[in-house]
C-alpha cells in the first residue's frame, strides 16, 4: 500500500479549497486496508463539495467496509487547478481516505447522477492512469463500474465502463465483491478479464456492455443483444424490498469543509408513485418503500448527537407524502438534545397548505427557504405532465406561507414540455404575479423567484418519445416570459442555460455511438460540463459533427411507438406499453392518480418483481391522493398534435 500524501502535500497550498483533498471527515475510515480483500474506490465524478454528501456512495462505503472480504475508499474529481498540478507532478487520481493511487484498487465505481458528468468519468479514468476505452485496458487493470440514475441508459458510456449496475446497490455489491474476489485470487493473469466480466454479467442487475452487440440499420438502432447464450437479453434492476433492513448510513460523514447539503440527511423513503411524467427518478425507483417511523426517529436522534449538526433533512422524492410526517417532524423538534434549535428541511413535491403547515412547525427554530414546484403554468399543462396541482392549491399554500411570516418563495417550472403553447408559458407569469399579490396582503416585502428549466426528456419515462425543444425555441420562451415579467420587480426570473439542455439531451437519450462524442469533448478539454464557467456547447456540436451524428436526430426528433430505444434492454420494471399508454394519456390530457392508495395500473414496478409498496398508512393524505381532491378522470382534448419532425439534414 502506497500513500501519495508526501507528494501531494506540497501541491495543496497552490490550489483553491485544499481541504477538498485531505479526507479526515468524521466517520471516514483510515485503518481499513485489508491486504487480502477486494478493494473498491467509490468515485464521484464531480467536485468534493457536490460528491461528499451523496447518500448512495456513503451507504456503499459503510456496507463494503463492514465486510471481511472487501474495503472501500472514496475519490472525487479534482478541480481543474488541482488536475493541472497533479498532471505536471505526475500524480494519479487518489483516494481521500488514505491517498492511495486509484489504479491500485480492484474496482473504480462511479456514481452517475447527471449526464453532464460523463466527460469527468473519462477524465477520472485517465487520471487514474488507465486507458479510457474498456477494450484498451489490460487484463489486470482495475475494473470500471458505474451505477446511479444515469446508468439506466448506459449506452453512451458503454465504450468506457466495464460494468453497470441498475437499481439499489445495497445487495448487489455483495455479489460483485464475490465475483471480483475470485478473479483477484487467481492473480488476474493474462486472458482472465473476459472470465470476470462474464461472471459479472451473470449477476442480476449487472450489465456488461462489451458482451452485448449493437445492430444498426442506417441511422436506426435495430437491437442490442447478448453475444453469449448464458447472458440475459434484458437486464432487470435490483430493488431492496424493505428499507427497514438497511438503516444506512449509520455514521454519516461529517466533512471538515463546507459542502452542499451540509447537514444530517436521513432517507425516509425510496420511490415515488405520484407519476409525474417528466420525472425519471419517480419512474425508476418504484415502488414506494417507507422506512418505519421509529427507525427514522432513531436515525435522526443518534445522527444529530453524533455529528453536532443543528439541521436535518428528511430526504425522499416527496417528503410530505411520508405517512407519519407530522409526527416525525414534531418528535424531532421536541427531541430534548436539540434544545428546540434544530431546523428540518423537507424536500417535497406537494404543493398545498398541509406542506406549509409542516414547514411552519419546522421553522420554529430557524426560518428556511420555501420552494414550490408547480412545474407548469397552466392546469392543462399540469395535467399533461401529471403534476396535478391546481391553482387553488398553490394559492392556498402561498397564502398560508405569507400569513405565517415568509416574505419570499421560490417557484420551479419547466418549459419546453410536450404540446406547450405560448399561453402555457405565459401562465407561469400569471401564477407568479398572483402569488405576489396574495403575499402583499400580508407583507410589503412579498416577492417570488421563478426558476425556469428547459425540459430534457429522460429514458424510462412516458416522455421518452418526445422531441426536445431546440435551444432557439427554449430561448424564445424564456424571452417571452422575461418580457412579460419585465417591470415587475417583485418577480425575479432565473433560467437554466438552453445550450446545456441540448448537451444533456445528447447524452440522456444517446446510443452507443455517442461514446465517440463524449470522448471527443473530453479530449478537447470539456470537463466539468455541469459548471457554467466550463460548459461549452460548441465542443459538443463539433464532436457530433466529427462523429457524423446529427443533434436534431438525437435530441429534437419525436420517436414513434415501434422504434427500438437504446435502453430497451434495460428494465426498470416498467412495461413499455404502460409507458406508451401513459404518453398517449398525457397527450389527451388525462391525469393518473397516485397508485399508493388507488388500484394498481400494472406499470410493472411491483408485479414484475413480486414486491409491494411499503406504506405505514392505508389512508391517503388529507385532500386525496394528490393532495388536491380533484376528479382526475376528466381530461381535455389537446389542441395541438405532435408529429414526428423531419430530420434536418440527416446525416447518418
Amino acid at each position, binding site marked *: 500500500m502506497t500513500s501519495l500524501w508526501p507528494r501531494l502535500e506540497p501541491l495543496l*497550498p497552490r490550489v483553491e479549497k485544499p481541504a477538498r483533498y485531505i479526507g*479526515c471527515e468524521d466517520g471516514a475510515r483510515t485503518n481499513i486496508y485489508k491486504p487480502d480483500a477486494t478493494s473498491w474506490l467509490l468515485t464521484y465524478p464531480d467536485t468534493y463539495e457536490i460528491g461528499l454528501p451523496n447518500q448512495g456512495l456513503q451507504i456503499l462505503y459503510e456496507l463494503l467496509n463492514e465486510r471481511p472480504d472487501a474495503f472501500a475508499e472514496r475519490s472525487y474529481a479534482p478541480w481543474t487547478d488541482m488536475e493541472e498540478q497533479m498532471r505536471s507532478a505526475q500524480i494519479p487520481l487518489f483516494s481521500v481516505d488514505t491517498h492511495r493511487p486509484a489504479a491500485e484498487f480492484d474496482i473504480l465505481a462511479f456514481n452517475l447522477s447527471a449526464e453532464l458528468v460523463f466527460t469527468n468519468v473519462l477524465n477520472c479514468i485517465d487520471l487514474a492512469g488507465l486507458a479510457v476505452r474498456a477494450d484498451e485496458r489490460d487484463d489486470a487493470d482495475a475494473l470500471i463500474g458505474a451505477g446511479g440514475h444515469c446508468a439506466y441508459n448506459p449506452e453512451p458510456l458503454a465504450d468506457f465502463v466495464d460494468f453497470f449496475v441498475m437499481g439499489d446497490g445495497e445487495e448487489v455489491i455483495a455479489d460483485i465483491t464475490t465475483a471480483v474476489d475470485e478473479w483477484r485470487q487467481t492473480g488476474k493473469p493474462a486472458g482472465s478479464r473476459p472470465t470476470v466480466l462474464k461472471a459479472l454479467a451473470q449477476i442480476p442487475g449487472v450489465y456488461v456492455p462489451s458482451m452485448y452487440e449493437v445492430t444498426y440499420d442506417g441511422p436506426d438502432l435495430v437491437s442490442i443483444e447478448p453475444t453469449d447464450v448464458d447472458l440475459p437479453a434484458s437486464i432487470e434492476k435490483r430493488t431492496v424490498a424493505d428499507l427497514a433492513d438497511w438503516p444506512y448510513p449509520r455514521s454519516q460523514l461529517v466533512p471538515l469543509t*463546507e459542502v452542499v447539503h451540509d447537514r444530517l440527511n436521513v432517507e425516509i423513503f425510496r420511490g415515488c408513485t405520484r407519476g409525474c411524467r417528466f420525472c425519471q427518478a419517480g419512474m425508476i425507483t418504484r415502488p414506494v418503500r417507507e422506512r418505519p417511523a421509529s427507525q427514522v426517529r432513531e436515525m435522526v436522534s443518534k445522527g444529530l448527537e453524533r*455529528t453536532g449538526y443543528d439541521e436535518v433533512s428528511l430526504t425522499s422524492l416527496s417528503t410530505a407524502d411520508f405517512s407519519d410526517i407530522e409526527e416525525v417532524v414534531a418528535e424531532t423538534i421536541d427531541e430534548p438534545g*436539540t*434544545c428546540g*434549535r434544530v431546523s428540518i428541511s423537507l424536500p417535497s413535491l406537494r404543493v398545498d397548505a398541509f406542506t406549509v403547515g409542516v414547514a411552519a412547525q419546522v421553522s420554529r427554530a430557524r426560518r428556511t427557504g420555501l420552494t414550490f414546484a408547480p412545474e407548469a403554468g397552466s392546469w392543462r399543462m399540469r395535467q399533461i405532465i401529471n403534476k396535478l396541482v391546481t391553482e387553488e392549491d398553490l394559492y392556498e399554500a402561498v397564502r398560508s406561507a405569507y400569513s405565517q411570516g415568509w416574505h419570499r418563495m421560490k417557484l420551479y417550472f419547466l418549459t419546453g414540455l410536450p404540446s406547450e403553447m405560448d399561453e402555457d408559458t405565459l401562465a407561469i407569469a400569471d401564477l407568479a404575479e398572483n402569488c405576489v399579490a396574495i403575499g402583499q396582503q400580508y407583507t410589503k416585502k412579498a416577492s417570488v423567484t421563478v426558476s425556469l428549466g428547459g425540459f430534457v426528456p429522460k429514458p424510462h419515462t412516458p416522455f421518452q418519445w418526445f422531441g426536445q425543444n431546440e435551444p432557439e425555441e427554449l430561448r424564445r420562451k424564456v424571452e417571452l416570459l422575461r418580457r412579460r415579467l419585465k417591470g415587475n420587480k417583485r418577480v425575479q426570473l432565473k433560467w437554466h442555460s438552453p445550450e446545456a439542455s441540448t448537451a444533456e439531451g445528447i447524452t440522456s437519450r444517446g446510443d452507443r455511438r455517442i461514446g465517440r462524442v463524449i470522448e471527443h469533448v473530453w479530449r478537447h478539454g470539456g470537463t466539468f460540463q455541469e459548471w457554467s464557467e466550463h460548459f461549452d456547447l460548441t465542443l459538443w456540436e463539433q464532436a457530433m459533427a466529427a462523429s457524423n451524428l446529427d443533434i436534431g436526430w438525437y435530441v429534437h426528433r419525436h420517436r414513434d411507438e415501434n422504434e427500438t430505444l437504446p435502453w430497451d434492454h434495460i428494465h426498470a420494471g416498467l412495461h413499455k406499453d404502460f409507458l406508451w399508454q401513459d404518453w398517449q394519456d398525457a397527450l389527451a390530457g388525462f391525469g393518473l392518480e397516485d397508485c399508493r392508495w388507488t388500484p394498481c395500473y400494472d406499470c410493472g414496478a411491483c408485479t414484475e418483481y413480486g414486491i409491494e409498496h411499503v406504506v405505514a398508512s392505508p389512508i391517503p393524505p388529507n385532500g386525496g391522493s394528490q393532495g388536491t381532491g380533484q376528479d382526475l378522470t376528466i381530461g381535455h382534448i389537446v389542441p395541438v398534435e405532435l408529429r414526428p419532425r423531419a430530420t434536418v439534414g440527416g446525416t447518418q
Partner: protein
Amino acid sequence: MRLRIRFSKLGKVRFVGHRDVARIVERGLRRCGVPFTYSEGFSPRVRMSFGLALPTCYESVAEYLDVPLNPESIEDGYIACTGWGEGKSYNEQEMQEALSQALPAGFDVVALTLEPKGGNSLQETVISCGWRFDIPGADANSVEEAIERTLQSSEIETERKKKNKLVREDIRYGIHDLRFDGQSERGPVVIAELSAKPRVIRPSELVDVLAPGAEMGIARRTHQWIEHEGQRQEPLLPSTSPQLKEYTT
C-alpha cells in the same frame, strides 16, 4: 461568564480554512452540550469570537476562542450542560477534556478557562504572533546569513499584492524576533515573532526575504501575544498536560 479556549490545529487539517474551523468548533460545542448563547435576529447564530484568523495551510498550537455562556448554567465553577450533554456538569478541566474529545482529530483543546466577560476582543488585543516554519530545499547557510542580514538592516522592502496592485512595503518594523533553528527533513527551520499591528505580517512574506524563489514549507503558529498592563503575555498558557488525540500528518 465565558469560556476562553486555546486549541491546536495540527497535521492534515491545516488545510481547513478559518470559516470552516468555526463550523467545526460549533458542532463540537453542540455535541458536548456547552450552554452557549445565540445572537438576536432573523437567523440567530451561536455567539463565538475567535482570535486572529489563521491562514489556510498553517498549523497552530495557539488558536483562541471566546464563547459567552448562559449565566444560569454556571454554579460554583461548574458548567451545567444542556442538549446532548443534559445532566452533565463539568469543571474547567473536565470541560477541556470533553470538548477536545468532541473535536475531529487534529484539533485539540490545550487550555480552557471560565472567566468573566468583558475587555477588548481577542482580535483587537493581539499585538504579535510567534511562528515556526521550514523552507523546503533552501540552503541552511544562506538562510542563516539572510537572517543575520535582516536583523542588521533598518529596512526590509517586500512586494505584496494589494487590491491587484503590487506595492512595495517595509516590513522590518514588524519583525520582532528571527532565529535559525536547525533543519527539518524538508529544510532549514526558522523561528519568528511577527507583528499583528497595524497589519498581520505572514511567515510567507519572510520566506521571500530569506530564500527568494523558495516556497513555504509547514508553518506553525506557536503564540499569539497580547499586552496586559504593559506586559507581553499569552491570553492562556497550555495546561500542564493536554492530551492530544492521534492525528494524521
